[in-house]
C-alpha cells in the first residue's frame, strides 16, 4: 500500500461541495447544509451527516455519493456518522444554494418560516398571517398561491403564480 493520503479538512469540504444532491442536482451537499462535520480520527476520515426529512429516500443515495466521491479522491477509510440533533432546517441552505434553486425553478425557503408547531389561531389565518409572499421563480411576481403543502419530493411544496400562471415548487420549510 502507498502511504495514507491525508488531505486537509478544508480540502475535503471543498470536495464535498462538488457532490450534487441526488434529487436536486443543481445544489451540492454543502449548499444543502447537511454536512455537519469533517474530521480525522487517526487515519479514518469521519464525515458527519444529518438527514433532511426522516423518510427521504435520497438519504441512502447521499451516503453512497459521499463515499464514492471521496474514494475517487483516493480516500478509502471513510466513516459516515449520522447526527440527528440539532435537527436539520431549511434555514441552513446556503445563500449560493438558494440562488441556484431559484435559477432552477424552485422557490428557495424563506428563513424562520419552518413549521414550529405554533398553531395559528383562526384570526391570524383569516388575516393571512400564514400566507407568505413567495416570489414566482419564473417572473418574480409575489402574487402566488399555495396548491399543496406537499410536492413531488419530500422537500417540496406546490405553488402557482397567479400572474404568469406558472406552477412551481417551493422548498418545504422545516
Amino acid at each position: 500500500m502507498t502511504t495514507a493520503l491525508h488531505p486537509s479538512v478544508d480540502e475535503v469540504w471543498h470536495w464535498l461541495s462538488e457532490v450534487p444532491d441526488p434529487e436536486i442536482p443543481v445544489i451540492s451537499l454543502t449548499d444543502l447544509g447537511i454536512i455537519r462535520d469533517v474530521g480525522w480520527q487517526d487515519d479514518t476520515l469521519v464525515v458527519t451527516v444529518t438527514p433532511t426529512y426522516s423518510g427521504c429516500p435520497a438519504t441512502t443515495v447521499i451516503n453512497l455519493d459521499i463515499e464514492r466521491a471521496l474514494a475517487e479522491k483516493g480516500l478509502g477509510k471513510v466513516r459516515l456518522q449520522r447526527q440527528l440533533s440539532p435537527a436539520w432546517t431549511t434555514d441552513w441552505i446556503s445563500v449560493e444554494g438558494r440562488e441556484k434553486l431559484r435559477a432552477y425553478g424552485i422557490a428557495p425557503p424563506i428563513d424562520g418560516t419552518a413549521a414550529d408547531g405554533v398553531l395559528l389561531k383562526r384570526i391570524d389565518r383569516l388575516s393571512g398571517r400564514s400566507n407568505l409572499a413567495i416570489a414566482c421563480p419564473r417572473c418574480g411576481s409575489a402574487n402566488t398561491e399555495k396548491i399543496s403543502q406537499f410536492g413531488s419530493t419530500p422537500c417540496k411544496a406546490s405553488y402557482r403564480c397567479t400572474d404568469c400562471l406558472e406552477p412551481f415548487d417551493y422548498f418545504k420549510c422545516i
Partner: protein
Amino acid sequence: MATATLEPAVDPAALFEFLARIGDNALILGHRVSEWCGHAPALEEDIALANTALDLIGQTQLWLGLAGEVEGKGRSADDLAYLRDGFEFRNILMVERPNGDFGKTLMRQFLYDAWHYLLLKSLKGSTDRRIAEIAEKAFKEVSYHLDRSRDLVIRLGDGTAESHRRMQEALDDLWPYTGEMFVADAVDTRLAEAGVIPEPQSLKAGWDEIVADALAEGTLKKPADGYMHKGGRRGVHTEHLGFVLTELQFLQRGYPGAVW
C-alpha cells in the same frame, strides 16, 4: 463521538416496550396512509398523503432502530417491522382502523397528529438523549402534518352538506378509539418517573384544546366520551391488523432475507 448517548437508568424492557409502541404507531399509520397512493381524490392530496406516509415510515426506522439497539438481540428496524407477529405489535387500535373514505382518513390523521405533536413536543425534553433527538427531528415533520390535517378537517367540516356529514360520521366512528392514547400502564409510569416520557394523561388537556378548537371552527360536534376501545398497546388487536401485516410482511415472509 457527537452521538454519545445519555442513557438514564431504566429497565431496558420497559424502554423497548415504549419504543415499540411509538414505532409501531408510526409504522401502521404510515402503511395505512400509503394505501391511498394512486387513489386519492386529487393529485395534490395523493402526493400529500404519500409524503405523510413517507415521513411516518422514516420516523419508524428511527424508533424501531433504537428499539432494536436497546433490546440488544441484534434485531434491526426491518426485522422488527417485517418479522414480528400481530400480538407483538404495540400500536394503538385507531391507527389500524381501515381507511374508510378520504374524510375518515383525514379525521384519523388529525386526531392522531394532535396527540403525536404533543407527545413529541414533550419527548424533546426526554432524559434519554437518543429519544430526545429523534423527537426533535420528528416534531418538525409532525407539526407540518398537523397544519394540514387540521386545516382540512376545518374546511371539510365547514364545507358542503355532504363533506360535513362525512366528517361528522368519521369523528363519531373514531372517537371511541381516542381514549387509548391517554391510558397509562406500569411501563408508562416507570418511564415517566424517570423523565423518559410524559405521563399519557398529561397530554389530554392540550389535545382536548387543539381538537375542540378545530371541531368548533369546522362546525363539527364533539362526541360524548363513552366506552373506549383499547388493547393494541399490549398486543391485543382487531382483525384489521392481520390484514395490514399480510400485505406489509409478505415479501419477507415469502422470500426470507430478500434484499432490494
